[in-house]
C-alpha cells in the first residue's frame, strides 16, 4: 500500500487493519493473531464455549502454558500453585476442543508467550497480535502492533476476528548516540520510565527509534518493547529492518518461498516516513547512561547502579508514596545501592530470558561462584532457548556457579501462590515489576539487567557488572 502523506509505522499498520470506522471514532480493527496462556486465556476459551460462540479462525490462534506451569526439572501437570493443575488441564481440553495451536507442557516449543511468538515467527512485521497479557507489547519489537487486552476482549477477538478500539495517540521516543559497554536495552527502558514516569506513555503507541535502537539486536529490542506496559503505553514498537528479516527467515510459522519475498517487500514499506508527525516526541541521549537498578516499588523508581537511593524531592514520588516505598524496600535515603546485601537473584521472564541474555550473563559468571546464602535461579524463556543454551554449555556455567537451572516458564516473575522468595527477602531480578509482593508476600524486588543480576549474585550485594567485566 502507498499513501500520499508521510505516515508513521503505527498509522500504516492501523490503516492496513481498519475494517470499518464506527461511530464515535471507534475503529473495527482486524486482528491477525491471538495468543492465549493458561492463566487468562483459559477463561476466555471457557467463557466462549459456554456462550456457544465458535472461534472464527482457530488456525490463527495460539496457546501456551507458561504462567502457572512448574519450572522444576521433570515437571508435569502438577504445580506448586494450589489448584494450578486445573488451569493446565482445563486449558489443554479447551484448546484441543477449539482446534487452536497448543504449546503444551511437554512440547519442544513450549515457552513464555512473548519469547516463543517471535522465536516461532508467529508475530510478523505489520501484523496485529493480541494476548490477554500486559507484556504483549514485547512483540512490537518485530514491527507489529502487539498489545495486551483483558479476557473479555480476547473473547471478542476470538469470536469476531476483530477488536473495537479508539485509536491511540502516537509518540516517538528517540534514543540517540551509542550505548556504553555493559549498558543494555533493559537499562534504556528503566531510564525512560524513571525520566517520564510510569504513566508517561498513557494513551500512546510509542515508537522507539534512533541510532541506539537501530544498533540493538532483535532480542534486545524485545526487551525494550517489553517494558512499554510499565510506561502505561498501549504498546511499544520498532520499525522492522534487515535484522528483523534475518531473524525471522526460516522460523516455523513464517511465510516461505515466494510468499516470503512478497512479505518482505511489503514490510519494507512499513517504517515511519520522513516527515511523519507524532502526537508527542521525546529523545534520550544514551551516551552517558549507566546500568540501572530500582530502589522502590514502581519501575519508575530506578537510578544508576552507581547512585544512591534518592531523597524524596528528587525521587519523583509523592511524600506518601516515597515513604511507603522506602519502608517496604527497607532502603535508606541517601545510601548507595551498590553494596546492598541481597538474598536471591533471578534471571528469567519475558523481559530478559532469551539466549543473548543468558550468554551475556554466563560470560560474567564463568569461573565464578554465587555468594554463599544467595539463592540464584535461572529460568530460560523457552525450551528452545534452554536447548540452545545447553548446546553451548551455558547451563554448566550457571550450575557450576551455583544457579538453579530450570525448565521454561514465567516462574518467579510473579507469585502465584506456590513458590516464593520469602517475606522481606531482597531479590535482584531481571524481570519487569518491582511492585509490593509481586514476587511473593513482602518480598523486596530490585529490577535490573541480567548482567547486574549475576554480578550481584556473585557479590552477594547489588553490584556494578562493568567492574566484573573489567
Amino acid at each position, binding site marked *: 500500500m502507498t499513501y500520499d502523506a508521510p505516515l508513521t509505522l503505527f498509522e500504516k499498520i492501523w490503516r492496513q487493519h481498519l475494517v470499518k470506522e464506527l*461511530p464515535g471514532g471507534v475503529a*473495527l480493527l482486524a486482528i491477525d493473531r491471538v495468543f492465549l496462556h493458561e492463566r487468562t486465556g483459559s477463561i476466555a476459551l471457557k467463557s466462549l464455549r459456554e456462550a456457544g460462540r465458535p472461534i472464527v479462525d482457530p488456525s490463527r490462534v495460539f496457546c501456551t502454558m507458561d504462567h502457572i506451569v512448574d519450572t522444576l526439572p521433570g515437571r508435569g501437570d502438577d504445580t506448586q500453585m494450589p489448584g494450578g493443575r486445573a488451569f493446565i488441564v482445563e486449558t489443554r481440553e479447551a484448546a484441543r476442543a477449539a482446534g487452536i495451536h497448543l504449546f503444551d507442557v511437554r512440547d519442544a516449543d513450549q515457552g513464555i508467550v512473548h519469547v516463543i511468538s517471535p522465536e516461532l515467527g508467529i508475530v510478523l512485521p505489520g501484523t496485529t497480535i493480541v494476548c490477554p497479557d*500486559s507484556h504483549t507489547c514485547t512483540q512490537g519489537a518485530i514491527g507489529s502492533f502487539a498489545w495486551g487486552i483483558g479476557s473479555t*476482549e480476547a473473547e471478542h477477538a476470538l469470536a469476531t476476528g476483530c477488536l473495537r478500539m479508539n485509536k*491511540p495517540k502516537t509518540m516517538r521516543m528517540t534514543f540517540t548516540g551509542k550505548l556504553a559497554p555493559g549498558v543494555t536495552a533493559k537499562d534504556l527502558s528503566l531510564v525512560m520510565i524513571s525520566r517520564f514516569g510510569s504513566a508517561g506513555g*498513557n494513551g500512546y503507541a510509542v515508537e522507539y527509534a534512533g541510532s541506539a535502537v537501530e544498533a540493538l539486536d532483535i532480542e534486545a529490542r524485545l526487551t525494550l518493547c517489553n517494558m512499554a506496559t510499565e510506561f502505561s*503505553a498501549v504498546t511499544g514498537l520498532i520499525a522492522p529492518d534487515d535484522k528483523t528479516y534475518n531473524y525471522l527467515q526460516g522460523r516455523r510459522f513464517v511465510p516461505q518461498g515466494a510468499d516470503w519475498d512478497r512479505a518482505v517487500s*511489503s514490510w519494507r514499506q512499513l517504517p515511519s516516513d520522513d516527515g511523519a508527525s507524532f502526537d508527542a516526541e521525546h529523545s534520550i541521549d544514551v551516551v552517558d547512561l549507566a546500568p540501572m537498578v530500582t530502589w522502590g516499588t514502581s519501575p519508575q523508581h530506578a537510578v544508576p547502579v552507581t547512585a544512591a537511593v534518592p531523597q524524596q524531592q528528587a525521587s519523583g514520588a509523592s511524600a506518601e*508514596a516515597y515513604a511507603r516505598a522506602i519502608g517496604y524496600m527497607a532502603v535508606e535515603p541517601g545510601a548507595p545501592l551498590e553494596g546492598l546485601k541481597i538474598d536471591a537473584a533471578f534471571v528469567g521472564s519475558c523481559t530478559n530470558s532469551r539466549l543473548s541474555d543468558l550468554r551475556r550473563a554466563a560470560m560474567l559468571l564463568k569461573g565464578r561462584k554465587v555468594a554463599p546464602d544467595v539463592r540464584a535461579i535461572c529460568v530460560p524463556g523457552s525450551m528452545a532457548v534452554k536447548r540452545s543454551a545447553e548446546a553451548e554449555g551455558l547451563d554448566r556455567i550457571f550450575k557450576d556457579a551455583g544457579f538453579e537451572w530450570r525448565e521454561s516458564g514465567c516462574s518467579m516473575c510473579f507469585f502465584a501462590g506456590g513458590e516464593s522468595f520469602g517475606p522481606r527477602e531482597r531479590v535482584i531480578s531481571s524481570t519487569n515489576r518491582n511492585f509490593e509482593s509481586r514476587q511473593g508476600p513482602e518480598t523486596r524486588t530490585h529490577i535490573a539487567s541480567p548482567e547486574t543480576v549475576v554480578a550481584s549474585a556473585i557479590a552477594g550485594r547489588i553490584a556494578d557488572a562493568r567492574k566484573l567485566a573489567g
Partner: protein
Amino acid sequence: MQPFVRLIAVTAPLLRANIDTDAIIPSREMKTVSKTGLADGLFAGWRYQQIGGREVNPDFVLNQAAYAGTQALLGGDNFGCGSSREHAVWALAEYGIRAIIAPSFAPIFFSNCVRNGILPVRLSAEDVAAIAAWVECNPQQHRVSFDLPAQTVVADEQAYRFELASEPKEMLLEGLDAIDLTLKHAPAIKAFQQADRARRPWIYDIGGR
C-alpha cells in the same frame, strides 16, 4: 452486563499512585478458571492481617464502618497498572464497586472496566483530592453522585465534568455485549478478509512446519 446510568455512592479514597492489579487481586487469590468467587480476594494484601488469611486489617479503608457499603473508589494516578488480569475488575464488580475516579487509568484496566459495567472517571488530581477531602469528613452522608448521561460527578454541591468517548459511554449505558455489536458487521469483516487475503496471504494460510 449490568448497565450504568446513575449512582449515588459511598466512596472510599485510596489515593496512592500506581495501584496495580496485583494489589487489587493478588495472583494467589485467582484460584480457579472462573470469573466469580473473586470478591473475597479483593485487595487481599491490604485488607487482611496476613497473607492467605482472612482476619481483617482494621486500618484498611474498606474495613472501616464509616465506609460500609462502598460502591465507588477514589484512586491515584495510573490506577490499575500492571498485569492485564481482568480478575481485578471482576473482583471489584463482585465486591460491589460500580465506579472509580482517578487522574489516569492503565489502558487495559480502563477497557476491562467498561466491559464489566464499572464506570472509570478521569478527573484531575486536584479534583480527586478535593472530593476525597469532602468524603472523608462523613463518608456515609457525603455520597458522590455519578451521572453518566450528563458525564458529571457531583460532590459537595460541585459538579465535575468528565470525558468519555461515545462508545464506552454507550456500552455502559446500555450494558451492551460488544461481540453482538461487532457481529452485526460480519459482512464488512468478511469483505475485508477477502481483500486482505489477496494482499497478505501469509496471514491466513499458516503453514507451520
